[in-house]
């Protein structure tokens, strides 16, 4: 698989060449608000991405490790989260008679999956299991840029390439033959905030949301990281000065 082992500290730089043999096109790159050490999620983009997920992706893809309460991280209010959760029904355990019951979702519930299990999903999707989306960005080389590219990568296959039934040609997908039909087109959704829904905009927004679902703590990670780094740099200076003073009489 597109393996990238990077041992840092100038150890090894090895984008495993042979494994890239599936000749996927170089990825498109978008500007991501969460890049860099001060990066934070663009809540508006993530919310638009959540809208795409709810209206399109969630028809086939599960998102097992996200709970509705996690939507607070992209700026949804408590009332909004309650409303989102209440729109689904989930198994509610057993009633007094021992019968299985259903109840409306709560913020603490995990995102409801479109299929009862993987087997059912595979059967409904012609044998290809739509991958769970909670970790999709973290499980693909290129991360958000991969999703961003894939969404825009459906093109007419080059002459002579035969696309098997139930598959589509995508120039960014390893091997090119992808079972997922083109999920996004321009104006596939009508954004609640009035943003113009071009294909690139949709791809950017859904990639932002999927990055959030992979790394829900990224904002805090960066915030805390800056403080920790400043502290350690300060301590390096302090200990170095102490070292010079203590060693002054040893030479």
């Amino acid at each position, binding site marked *: 698989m597109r393996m990238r082992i*990077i041992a840092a500290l100038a150890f090894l730089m090895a984008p*495993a060449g042979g494994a890239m043999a599936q000749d996927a096109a170089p990825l498109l790159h978008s500007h991501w608000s969460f890049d860099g*050490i001060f990066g934070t999620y663009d809540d508006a983009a993530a919310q638009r991405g959540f809208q795409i997920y709810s209206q399109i992706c969630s028809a086939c893809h599960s998102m097992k490790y996200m709970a509705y309460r996690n939507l607070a991280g992209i700026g949804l209010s408590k009332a909004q989260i309650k409303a989102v959760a209440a729109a689904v029904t989930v198994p509610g355990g057993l009633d007094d008679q021992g019968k299985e019951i259903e109840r409306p979702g709560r913020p603490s519930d995990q995102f409801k999956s479109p299929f009862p299990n993987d087997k059912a999903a595979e059967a409904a999707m012609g044998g290809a299991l739509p991958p769970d989306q909670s970790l999709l960005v973290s499980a693909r080389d290129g991360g958000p840029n991969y999703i961003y590219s894939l969404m825009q990568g459906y093109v007419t296959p080059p002459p002579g390439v035969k696309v098997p039934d139930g598959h589509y040609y995508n120039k960014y997908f390893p091997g090119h033959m992808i079972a997922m039909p083109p999920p996004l087109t321009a104006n596939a959704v009508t954004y609640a905030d009035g943003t113009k829904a071009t294909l690139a905009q949709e791809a950017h927004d859904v990639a932002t949301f999927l990055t959030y679902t992979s790394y829900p703590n990224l904002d805090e990670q960066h915030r805390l990281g800056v403080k920790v780094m400043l502290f350690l740099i300060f301590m390096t200076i302090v200990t170095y000065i102490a070292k010079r003073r203590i060693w002054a009489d040893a030479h």
Partner: protein
Amino acid sequence: MAAGLFKSELKNPVLRWVDTRLPVITLMQKEYGTFPTPRNFNYFWNFGALATVTLLIMIATGVFLAMHYTPNSTMAFASVQHIMRDVNYGWLIRYVHMNGASMFFIVVYIHIYRGLYYGSYKFPRELLWMLGVVILLLMMATAFMGYVLPWGQMSFWGATVITNLFSAIPVVGTTIVQWLWGGFSVGNPTLNRFFSLHYLLPFVIVGVVFLHVVALHITGSNNPLGIDVKGPQDTLPFHPYYTVKDSVGLCVFLAIWAAFVFFMPNLLGDVINNIPANPLHTPADVVPEWYFLPFYAILRSVPNKFMGVMLMFASIGVLFVLPWLDTSPVRSCRFRPIYRILVPLLVVDVFVLGYVGAHHPQGFIILLGRVATAWYFLHFLVFTPLVGLFETPLPLPESIAAPVVRKSPSGGGPIPGGAVAKPMENA
């Protein structure tokens, strides 16, 4: 002083009462306070302390991870996500732990290089060195089993490939592998025992580290000149001189570690380990973590599986006998004009092996891997004994103090250039 009590010299009556019955305070004072330490350490001598601190941080974070982790093949992956998403600062603890493994290997590899370059494995420190090699082996086993626990695709297939190496052993190989697995493939019993051993082995490492330190405190530390301590003028008390010097290195090291944790926590990992283990779907490439790549390259550079496995273990085993392979009486490479080139070349060779280990073994990569593997063993088995016999070492300084203390020019022969204290140490 009653018979059977230790003669403590502590002034504080409470501490003294304890110390006369359990002289740990005096012991610490002796071994880490006044302990006479060569005065000419450079920053390479930080790395033992850094490794100790890393071990403690790994154990501390590991204990907290184990409180939230579930060692069951159907729940392990989800429990790691639970740590990453629901546990307060779980993401921080896990990122510290998983990057800590890489930091541990970086520190220990530099520590080993220090030993190779300055001849710290030679008389009288052979056993000290061998205990270090035991620690390295234990670390490798621990890291390997720890990588299996998240039960992602690379966890599962890495475990499958590595445990399968034992099947290369003639006659009993298959039996051994099934015994390791607790079944006929990597599965829940494998995960359970790996979790158990991953929790146990770090404490075994602590034990061997203790022996490593005991052995060190008998022979005393080597130093960049590689010559023996002649008297008090050659040493400084460990505290405060080296406690403060180690602190400087520790702060820099923690800053590097933190940079990984907060800004590139997944850089050293493999993306496909974020896909749950699937025994029915083999990844196109099964590649170990970066710190195993050189050994993986040695394994793959031999067409015969059994020989490959043997050679891989021999690459560590050769370190055990290094004290007897090196025929030179001079420890430090500063005074060994030929060997001082060979040791950095060995490092280059190991980097090449790492590069080979990360790539598909085809064409030029295979050739490169074989040459680098050959060089690795030639270095230890041929160059090291021969160079020791034929090399003319530079004249050694008479004592550590002579080249370091500049203001007392009495005594001491010609001062070797490299031995003069660095300007930064002349505050």
